[in-house]
């Protein structure tokens, strides 16, 4: 273990020498963010390398307008909301789902399949599935839509806000103020889309893209490989997670996403509108489209005044640089989504690293 850590240290030093400044690596995945903090990696690495937490937490980048629309649906007697757990505490303008669970019409599910089961168990209710997440969760939503068609289940409605990772990476790099030298790419998403999906990022922006799993040693390996590429000026797509990620990814999952959804322009909290970044159900499945069938359109809302989640998501500032961090924005009273999600950069920072670096 120590050998690998020392090797990573050497590569970081090489990259620093080559660039003549601090290295900024963005981890695009919320699970990486949490792994980095949980393993104490932030303190274990030299100050010459900085890990930026990117827009890879599906909850963090969920537009407030979407949350408010879900809250409105939760108030309807004819609807039962099926949601992943980490959406429960995200604040919209009218509170959060957690504050509305007392009416018994909000159910936490672990999978889209659970939402379909709820539809079968509650034929008198309209089950609204809060379909968020990246390419990791989109195939399961697509499968459920197919099953609903096959089994003639008419009371499940998909409120889709699934997002695509690569368009967001492209949008971040297109901002002239970005500070990103390289990406550590998400493990679970890459299982679906394959590591080749990042080739356009490397080709167009000359930034290393290395896929990693979530074990601390894998993250260290990825950092080491990224820094080697930076030092040698050879940006490329690579993977230190070959056991799970192939260059082509899961073709079956990709096909079912393509057959079920259209990629449309969509709003990301903190990043604004990103072209072809959001998945909406195709017209042929409009019977299951919550927005079309339940009349609850979600309208993009400007982020709350003072909340700098957007800049955090873009890697422009660290959470403690936000003027609300640990003051009016705390885990129990979150203002921005990066504080509320278990995988949000601010929550992770507050939870695991609230004090100055301290050497052992």
């Amino acid at each position, binding site marked *: 273990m120590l050998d690998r850590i020392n090797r990573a240290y050497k590569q970081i030093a090489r990259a620093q020498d080559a660039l003549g400044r601090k290295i900024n690596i963005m981890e695009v995945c919320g699970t990486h963010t949490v792994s980095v903090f949980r393993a104490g990696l932030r*303190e*274990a690495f030299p100050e010459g390398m900085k890990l930026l937490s990117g827009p890879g937490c599906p909850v963090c980048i969920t537009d407030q307008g979407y949350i408010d629309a879900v809250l409105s649906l939760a108030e309807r007697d004819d609807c039962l909301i099926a949601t*992943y757990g980490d959406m429960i505490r995200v604040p919209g303008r009218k509170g959060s789902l957690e504050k509305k669970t007392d009416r018994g019409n909000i159910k936490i599910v672990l999978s889209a399949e659970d939402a379909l089961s709820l539809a079968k168990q509650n034929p008198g209710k309209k089950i609204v599935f809060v379909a968020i*997440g990246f390419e*990791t969760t989109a195939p399961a939503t697509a499968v459920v839509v197919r099953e609903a068609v096959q089994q003639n289940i008419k009371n499940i409605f998909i409120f889709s806000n699934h997002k695509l990772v690569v368009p967001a990476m492209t949008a971040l790099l297109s901002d002239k103020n970005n500070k990103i030298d390289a990406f550590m790419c998400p493990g679970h*998403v890459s299982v679906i889309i394959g590591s080749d999906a990042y080739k356009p990022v490397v080709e167009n922006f000359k930034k290393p893209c290395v896929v990693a799993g979530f074990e601390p040693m894998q993250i260290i390996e990825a950092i080491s490989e990224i820094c080697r590429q930076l030092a040698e000026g050879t940006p490329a797509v690579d993977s230190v997670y070959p056991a799970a990620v192939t260059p082509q990814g899961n073709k079956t999952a990709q096909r079912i996403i393509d057959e079920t959804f259209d990629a449309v322009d969509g709003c990301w909290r903190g990043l604004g509108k990103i072209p072809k970044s959001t998945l909406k159900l195709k017209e042929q499945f409009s019977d299951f489209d919550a927005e079309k069938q339940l009349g609850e359109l979600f309208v993009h809302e400007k982020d709350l005044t003072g909340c700098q989640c957007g800049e955090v998501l873009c890697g422009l500032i660290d959470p403690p640089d936000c003027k609300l961090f640990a003051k009016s924005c705390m*885990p*129990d*009273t979150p203002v921005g989504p990066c504080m509320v999600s*278990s995988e949000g950069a601010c929550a992770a920072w507050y939870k695991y690293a609230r004090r100055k670096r301290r050497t052992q």
Partner: protein
Amino acid sequence: MTASDKILLAHGGGGRLTDELIHSVILPAFDNRTLNKLTDAAEIPAGKDNICFTTDGYVVKPLFFSGGDIGKLAVCGTINDLAVSGAKPAALSLSLIIEEGLEISVLKKILASAAKAAKEENISIVCGDTKVVEAGCADKIFINTSGVGFKLPRADVGFEKISAGDKIIVSGTIGDHGMTIMSQREGMKFETEMKSDCGSVAQICAKAIEALGGEIKFMRDPTRGGLAATLNEIVSQADYGIDIYEENIPVNPTVRAAADMLGFDILNIANEGKVVIVVSEKNAEKCLEICKSCENGKNAAVIGEIVKSDEPLVELVTMIKGRRIVQMPYGRELPRIC
């Protein structure tokens, strides 16, 4: 303060919201010195002996789980609250709130399990109560048990006894109960079966007190909120910190895999048959031997120590020798989605 004007599930999770509810709503209603100490059991002077008195409610779902059931849990949980207070449990009450429609056979099974757990600890259930509520007004069955015990003569435990240099011992693997319940609830299957640690820690506590007396500074069973909540309670009003070492904390590999899969921090997961002991440095090894000599203490380990610190924080030294804060959990663990 949370902005909530209603009770949330997280208020019952043993984390920050529970703490807030207790301090802002419950304690002010009764306001007495004994209650305000928030010990596991209240100590009541009674002639030459001090009596310890405790109570606890049990609402677990599912009622039957690998390693135990609500009956066993209700008996062992209250015995443990007495044991970690330095008392020898003497008698229990058991009170039932039953939802209309529960099968009598299920009730019998639960009561038989409670009786067996009590018998194993040589303790009797001496009084109780039964209430039945309409269907939909409770979730099958809720149990309350209260317990009394006599303070062991050599026991002298309390937050105020703890000082820098003391060692922290945990009596075995952490997170077993919480992850077993969650996996069973969600229908998750693992190659190796997980099992709740539901059981009594009375033997470990009594042996440690008998052998080491006041060198045992503090004991607590890390139930809701897990090890993280217990350690944060210890530092919450202190002028010291706690360092724990990830490589020393015993965790069953299957339990760790389940926690990782759902994105939970194993330190926040509930236990129902473990004790955290703070012991003076010079007696730590002796205390560890005592734990290991007991059937349910074989995997005990010294996991860290009380340290001088400007900030009363619990910190984890990770496997890769990094450091991170271990925070009081919020109160409700939510699985991640990807």
